[in-house]
């Protein structure tokens, strides 16, 4: 599944679509403790986290994640978005909760 496929669903919106959304989502990961995510998340994943500050982009970029999904309508900090554009990481927001996001990813075969 590509990021663009996910964005076809009305529940998801990309905050920085100008960087391109053709990356392939190979797996999913959920977590808010950055050290835990650093140690355990794989590359190519969609990372669902409620953290919204600039350091999530550093983690996503270092691990070569495909995108970050912010659930439950949490507001993403401007500095995080600026960094996401530089680092080429799509940041996607949704009003769904993390479990509902995972259900959609799972139903899409991820």
């Amino acid at each position, binding site marked *: 599944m590509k990021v663009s496929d996910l964005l076809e669903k009305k529940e998801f919106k990309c905050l920085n679509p100008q960087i391109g959304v053709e990356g392939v989502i190979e797996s999913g990961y959920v977590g*808010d403790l950055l*050290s835990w995510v*650093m*140690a355990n998340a794989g590359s190519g994943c969609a990372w669902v*986290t409620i953290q919204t500050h*600039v*350091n999530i982009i*550093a983690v996503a970029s*270092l691990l070569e994640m495909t995108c970050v999904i912010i659930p439950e309508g949490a507001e993403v900090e401007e500095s995080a978005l600026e960094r996401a554009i530089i680092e080429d990481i799509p940041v996607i927001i949704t009003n769904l909760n993390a479990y509902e996001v995972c259900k959609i990813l799972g139903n899409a075969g991820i």
Partner: protein
Amino acid sequence: MRYKLILDVKRGDFDAAGEASRKIKDILQQLGVSSKVIRKVSIAGYEGEMNLAIHSLGGKIILEVGEEELSLTIKDIGPGIDNLDLAMTAGWSTADDKVRQMGFGAGMGLFNMNKHADNFLITSKIGAGTKIVMKFSLE
């Protein structure tokens, strides 16, 4: 020695945190280091960088790339760690509430560094500082 780089990390500068690790990753990619090794160095380097920003009075990250291995040294100017055994324990942290709310302070930093480096050495003295030397085989 094929390459050496020294990067400064300031205390409390969370907005810039991750930039040193990013630079290191870029350089290792340019040097043709395998993605498996880069991932290990990235994880350990990011943890070291965050530890400097969260816990130290400021410090440096030194990357040295040789023919068969690379080393990453995380060195700060204090305050030093009182009990290293405790600090190395997964889940143990002295991070404050603000830092924990940002998702740091899980107590996994030193544990992750030790886990991902092929060789890990930490020394610390109260009032003087902490030095971590990690070595990674280039395979």
